[in-house]
Each structure stands twice: as structure tokens, then as C-alpha cells.
């Protein structure tokens, strides 16, 4: 085999589903291509790792499978027909028990319960209209009377409530006003006493602080004067010492000069004597 086998052939070989000539061909090709053989070995390793994913144990549920051959009375159409018949029977029995009557005569359909009335006993259209009119008038009169009475009661109640409420509100306003005045008076008195107390504290504190400050200032000033005096004395002493040294030096210089002059005079006298 010169050409590379396709993926289907490779995978079939890998899973051992290749036979005969094709198997021999791919084996020969793999011998010439060790890198492909290595790839198949890697597949094998991967498959071994995935094979470690074993089966989960599970218990099959108990089975309850019924007989396939159902009796004819369990067939759908039979059950539906029986259902309709049973419903009709229930309706008929109920109608009989409630005394339902249905009749049709001279273009008139009548459905009713209990005994039927003969056709001649019915009221005329005018009689019915008169009854309805009369009933409406009575109703209107009753409603108007009831409405007037209700309105009067309502107005009385409202008036009474308004009066009672306004008295209550006045009383409340008075109470609130009195209470507020007392509160303001107490508040102002409290404010006044607080301010007085704070001012006293402040003045006391301020006086004490000032005293301490002046004392500190006086002490510092006396220290300063003492230092100044000490420094002046040192300077005077230093100046006197310097004058003394200069005088000494001057005296020594003068003595040397005099000695030198005396010696010079003496030697000149000897020379002239010789």
C-alpha cells in the first residue's frame, strides 16, 4: 500500500473489523510508517482510560404487562356507545322524577314542571302590561320614600358629626396651644440657665489661665535678665584680663629697651676709656 489508508479503514483496523487483503495491506503500510502505528497505540491508551468508566448497577423495575387481547366490551367504540346510552337514561329518569312536561299545540311549545295549565287561563297582553305598570309605580313610590328618609337621616348624621368634630378639633387646638406655650417657656428657662452656667465656667477658666500665663512670663523674664547679667560680667572680666596682659607686655618691652640702652652706654664708655 503506497497511499495513506483513509480514516474508515484505519478505524476498522484498529477495532479489528478488517479482514483479508485489506488487513494485510494496512499491516504492511503501518510497518513502513511507525509514526502512524504510534498514533494507533495512543488511541488504544485513550480507549483503555475511557474503558475504566464502568457500568452502573441498576435494578430493572418489576414489569406489569397486561394481556394484549382485550374483551370486546373494553373496545373504545363500545365504551363510548354505552356511555351515551347511560347518560340518556340518567336524563330520562331525572325528567320523570322532577315531573318535566313538554307539549306542543297550535304553534306553541311548552316546557314546565309539575301539572300543566289549560291554554284558556292565560293573561292577555294588556293585562300583563297593566300589572307591570302598576308594579313599577308602586316600586317607584316606595323607592322615593325610602330615598327621602335615607337622605334626611344622612343629613342629620352629617350635621351632628360635623358639630361634634369641630368641638373636638377646637379643644385639641386649645390643648396643643397651651402645651406648646408651656414647652417654649420651659425651653427658654432651660436655655437661660445653661448659658449662665457656661459663661461662669468660661470666665473662671479664663481668669485662672491668665494668672498662670503672667506668672510664667515673669519667671521667664527674670531668667532672661539673670542670663544677660552673667554674660555682661563675663565680658567685663575678659576685657580687664586683656588690659592687664597688655600692660605687662608693655612693661617688659620698656625694661628690655632700658636694659639695652644701659648696656650700650656702658660699652661706649669703656671703649673711650681705652
Amino acid at each position, binding site marked *: 500500500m503506497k497511499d495513506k489508508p483513509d480514516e474508515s479503514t484505519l*478505524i476498522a483496523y484498529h477495532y479489528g473489523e478488517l479482514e483479508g487483503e485489506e488487513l494485510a495491506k494496512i499491516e504492511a503500510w503501518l510497518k513502513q510508517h511507525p509514526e502512524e502505528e504510534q498514533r494507533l497505540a495512543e488511541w488504544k491508551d485513550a480507549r483503555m482510560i475511557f474503558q475504566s468508566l464502568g457500568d452502573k448497577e*441498576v435494578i430493572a423495575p418489576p414489569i406489569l404487562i397486561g394481556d394484549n387481547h382485550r374483551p370486546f366490551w373494553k373496545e373504545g367504540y363500545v365504551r363510548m356507545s354505552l356511555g351515551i346510552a347511560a347518560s340518556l337514561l340518567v336524563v330520562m329518569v331525572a325528567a320523570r322524577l322532577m315531573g318535566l312536561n313538554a307539549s306542543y299545540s297550535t304553534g306553541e311549545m311548552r316546557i314546565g314542571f309539575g301539572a300543566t295549565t289549560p291554554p284558556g287561563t292565560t293573561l292577555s297582553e294588556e293585562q300583563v302590561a297593566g300589572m307591570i305598570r302598576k308594579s313599577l309605580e308602586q316600586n317607584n313610590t316606595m323607592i322615593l320614600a325610602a330615598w327621602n328618609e335615607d337622605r334626611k337621616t344622612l343629613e342629620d348624621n352629617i350635621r351632628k358629626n360635623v358639630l361634634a368634630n369641630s368641638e373636638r378639633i377646637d379643644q385639641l387646638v386649645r390643648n396643643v396651644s397651651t402645651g406648646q406655650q408651656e414647652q417654649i417657656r420651659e425651653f427658654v428657662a432651660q436655655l437661660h440657665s445653661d448659658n449662665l452656667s457656661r459663661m461662669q465656667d468660661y470666665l473662671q477658666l479664663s481668669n485662672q489661665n491668665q494668672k498662670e500665663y503672667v506668672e510664667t512670663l515673669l519667671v521667664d523674664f527674670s531668667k532672661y535678665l539673670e542670663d544677660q547679667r552673667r554674660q555682661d560680667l563675663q565680658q567685663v572680666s575678659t576685657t580687664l584680663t586683656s588690659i592687664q596682659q597688655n600692660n605687662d607686655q608693655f612693661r617688659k618691652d620698656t625694661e628690655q629697651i632700658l636694659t639695652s640702652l644701659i648696656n650700650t652706654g656702658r660699652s661706649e664708655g669703656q671703649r673711650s676709656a681705652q
Partner: protein
Amino acid sequence: MMHADDLIARAREGDTVAQGKLMQAWYKRIYNFGYKFFFDHDLAMEVAQKTFIAMHRNISQLQQDSSFRPWLYTIAVNCCREELRRRKNSRAVSLHDLRPVDEEQSQVWEIAVNREDNPERKLRQSELADLLHNCLLQLSEEQREVVVMKEYEGLKFREIADALSISENTVKSRMYYGLEAMKRMLERRKITIETIGYEG
């Protein structure tokens, strides 16, 4: 004890006892197929139940006894796809997704637990199993179907092709790219046979 072929033949003829025995024999396989596909116990149970209800209703239409296995997986795959569609259309979250990674207490009655296992080893295996399941979930649905059928259910390529109603070459191609993807995922996570201490 009935032979498997006899069992299928009798089930096809409407023998409910044979159908029940078939269900008992295949329930674990179909549950595990669903579990590896979804990594979700509830969905796997749902898939298994729906698969066997469909089997009971339609087994009389099975043409040959020998094609029972791919036929059953066809039903299971269709149930899985239906569940996937339902999940995509629904915003509901399975309680299984909210469970902690460790052992599910609620399933103790269903899942046998080997009490003699070393706890540390058990934990390591559990973590590895979660990791591998997540790798499987990262495959495309088409690749996952083929990979689970081939790797865990041991179907031949011809049977997978029959079950999915696609060509054998398409199955092999999906397996090829699925396997490559799995290998890359393991490499990225630095998981090798040595690191997991594979004991054969």
C-alpha cells in the same frame, strides 16, 4: 432457561413473559447507554423505561430475530434524541445536575455499593469517572452516540449503522474523529495510563 433467540421469537409473537425477560436481560445495558449519553441518572431511567415501553408496543413489527440488538438501540437512541430536544426546549434543571459530586444517597436502593473498597481509591475513581463523563459530554451528539455504542455497548460498525440508519463509512468517520477528540481531551488534562494507575 430459554435461549436468547427463542426469547426474542416468543416476544415477537406477543408472549408477555418473554418480553418481560428480555427487558430484565437488557435493562442494565440500555440504562447504561442512556447514563453515558446524558451523565444523568433520571434521564437514563427515563430513556430505559421509554425504550422498553416502545419495545413492548412494537416488537411484533421486528423483521428478524438477529436484528433485535440494533433495533433496540435504535429505539434507545431515538428516546435519547427526544429527551435532548425536550431539554433544549425546556428551561428545567434536573435535580441530578444539582447533586454533589460524591455518592448519591437517594440511589442507594438502586445501585450496589462495594463496601470493601478503599475509600481513597473509591474517591479517586469517582473523580476520574466524572472527568471522563464530562469528556464524553463534550463530544458532539452524533459522535457520542457512536462512541458509546462502540466503546461501551460493543456493537459492530454494521450494527451501529443499522441502528442509526446511516452508512457504515459515516459511522467509522464519526468514530475516528470522536476518538481523536477523546485523545486530545486526555492530553489536555494530562491523563495517561500511568497517572490513573491502570491495573489492567
